[in-house]
């Protein structure tokens, strides 16, 4: 039930404890900057107007408007991620949701039996070396092996201190899972 916010630079981490074994962690990216958007649009339109003056074809102007509109829709619908959240339900599974600026949500649910572990790993990304959180999926053939790595928070890429906090929360719940079968065996 506890709800708290931790703001590091522009990203906000929101934690929500629904119950002892159910937790939701959401990383919210900054909202779309109106200034950047309008600058870009006006830049494109100015360039189109320049072209129009040069070649005196009004097609250019309508094409520019069309392209900016399509671009904006594509950007909002497929690129700009508003919030990425991680819902961990002990004994049920981990659900990863990323909601786009247009309201579209894409969700993946990974069952607890498939989850091997949640770890922080390092990777070279573009011209950077970043830490990222990932879920290791158990290989059905080989219980020790890892068949797949699902990276989390792919678009917001939070920094290490935020990742560690998420990691600790995840591990607390994952440990309940590990201890539970043992205690029943003892009993």
């Amino acid at each position, binding site marked *: 039930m506890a709800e708290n916010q931790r703001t590091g*630079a522009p990203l906000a981490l929101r934690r929500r404890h629904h119950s002892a074994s159910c937790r939701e962690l959401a990383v919210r990216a900054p909202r779309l900057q109106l200034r950047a958007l309008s600058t870009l649009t006006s830049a494109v339109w100015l360039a189109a107007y320049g072209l129009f003056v040069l070649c005196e074809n009004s097609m250019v102007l309508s094409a520019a408007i069309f392209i900016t509109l399509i671009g904006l829709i594509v950007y909002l619908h497929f690129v700009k991620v508003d919030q990425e959240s991680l819902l961990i339900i002990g004994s049920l599974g981990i659900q990863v949701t990323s909601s786009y600026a247009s309201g579209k949500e894409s969700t993946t649910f990974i069952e607890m039996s498939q989850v091997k*572990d949640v*770890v*922080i*790993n*390092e*990777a*070279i990304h573009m*011209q*950077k*070396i*970043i*830490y990222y959180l*990932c879920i*290791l999926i158990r290989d059905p053939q080989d219980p020790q*092996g*890892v068949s797949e*790595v699902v990276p989390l928070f792919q678009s917001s890429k939070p*920094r*290490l201190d935020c990742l*560690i906090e998420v*990691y*600790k929360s995840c*591990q607390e719940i994952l*440990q309940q899972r590990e201890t539970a079968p043992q205690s029943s065996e003892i009993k």
Partner: protein
Amino acid sequence: MAAPAAAPARRRRRHTVCMVSDFFYPNMGGVESHVYQLSQCLVSRGHKVVVVTHAYGARRGVRYVTRGLKVYYLPLRVMYNESTATTLFHSLPLLRYIFVRERVAVVHAHSSFSAMAHDALFHAKTMGLRTVFTDHSLFGFADVSSVLTNKLLAVSLCDTNHIICVSYTSKENTVLRAALDPRIVSVIPNAVDPTDFTPDPSRRDESTVTVVVVSRLVYRKGIDLLGGIIPELCQKYPDLHFLVGGEGPKRIVLEEVRERYQLHDRVRLLGALEHQDVRNVLVQGHIFLNTSLTEAFCMAIVEAASCGLQVVSTRVGGIPEVLPEDLIILCEPSVKSLCDGLEKAIAQLRSGTLPSPETIHNKVKTFYTWRNVAERTEKVYEKVADEVVLSMSERINRLISHCGPVTGFIFAFFAVLNFLFLLFLRWMTPDSSIDVAIDATGPKGAWTKQCFPGKKEKVKEVLNS
């Protein structure tokens, strides 16, 4: 009493070193094992070491090897002979990121063949870090390519804090090529792990005489000479066998020789050898043959001698310094001279005047140890850490005054460009927004102490499988 108390305090100092070289495991060779062993020894002495190299096939990203040594395999394009292509600038963003996140104080570059090492030196100097360079190879002075590479080396080394060479010949060569002040050049030889190379006379076939050659089959290693020696000696000694380990473009020369003289049962080509298999090949022979045309410090002959073999080698580069006279037969790099040397070795073997493998091993194992190398390298770091790094203006002055008017100006210009690029990168991603890497080793290592209760280690290696 004050002096001894101060000395340990000085020795306590921990360094954060970044080894940069194009050559690292899984590639095999002298430089690779040097970097690896040196890093391991430094790690066990409490320093923090990271290794930076380029990606080898699917091996890219960040990996950990033994004792938590962190290796960055950067996705840079390989141009020739496992050396990366260089534009002098394109590797700056990644290298800067690594230097900042690992809080590197000393950048230690290896091998003058490695473009990445030179790049790293260039960037480290721009960023104001201390630099050390180890030269592993010898060069000529005469032909056009040597003149060019020597010029580049001079540019690269003129403002480097310290240079390490592996033998006195190599030091002489480097000082001449790069026009350096000999006082900033140290000699630290390579080493072998004597416990890895122990003799085992029972593995030898006493009914024959076996000559072992272990090297990459390339021109520099004198494989063409070997192709001349094999038929000549095989005709003379019917019980002579050759065992060749290694792979390379010159393999075809040996295959042709083998087919032409029908020596399939006497010349065995083993192909590429894993490092742990080298000893098993070495102990099968009586004589070790090295036909290199140029060599700064030949680790192969030390390994062979440590296995108790009689060594026959060419007298080139730093080889004469490596082993004492009684353990090695030195020849000129020609077929005739090498044949004479081998015949002498065979005669000694037949007459039984050779010392036993055990005595050779016991003698050699005291010569070169990695612990010694690490201690001496540590001293270099100590020295470098006290020096001041040249400021930008001083560096440009040094470049112009040191490297000739044309080259100097060009590279001074490049240095300025690089600095501007660095400023741009600092503006794009400020140092404060770069996460500090969690150390696996060193004084604050996460692997040595429990960072989080319950979980063994925080950062796990995932992809290494």
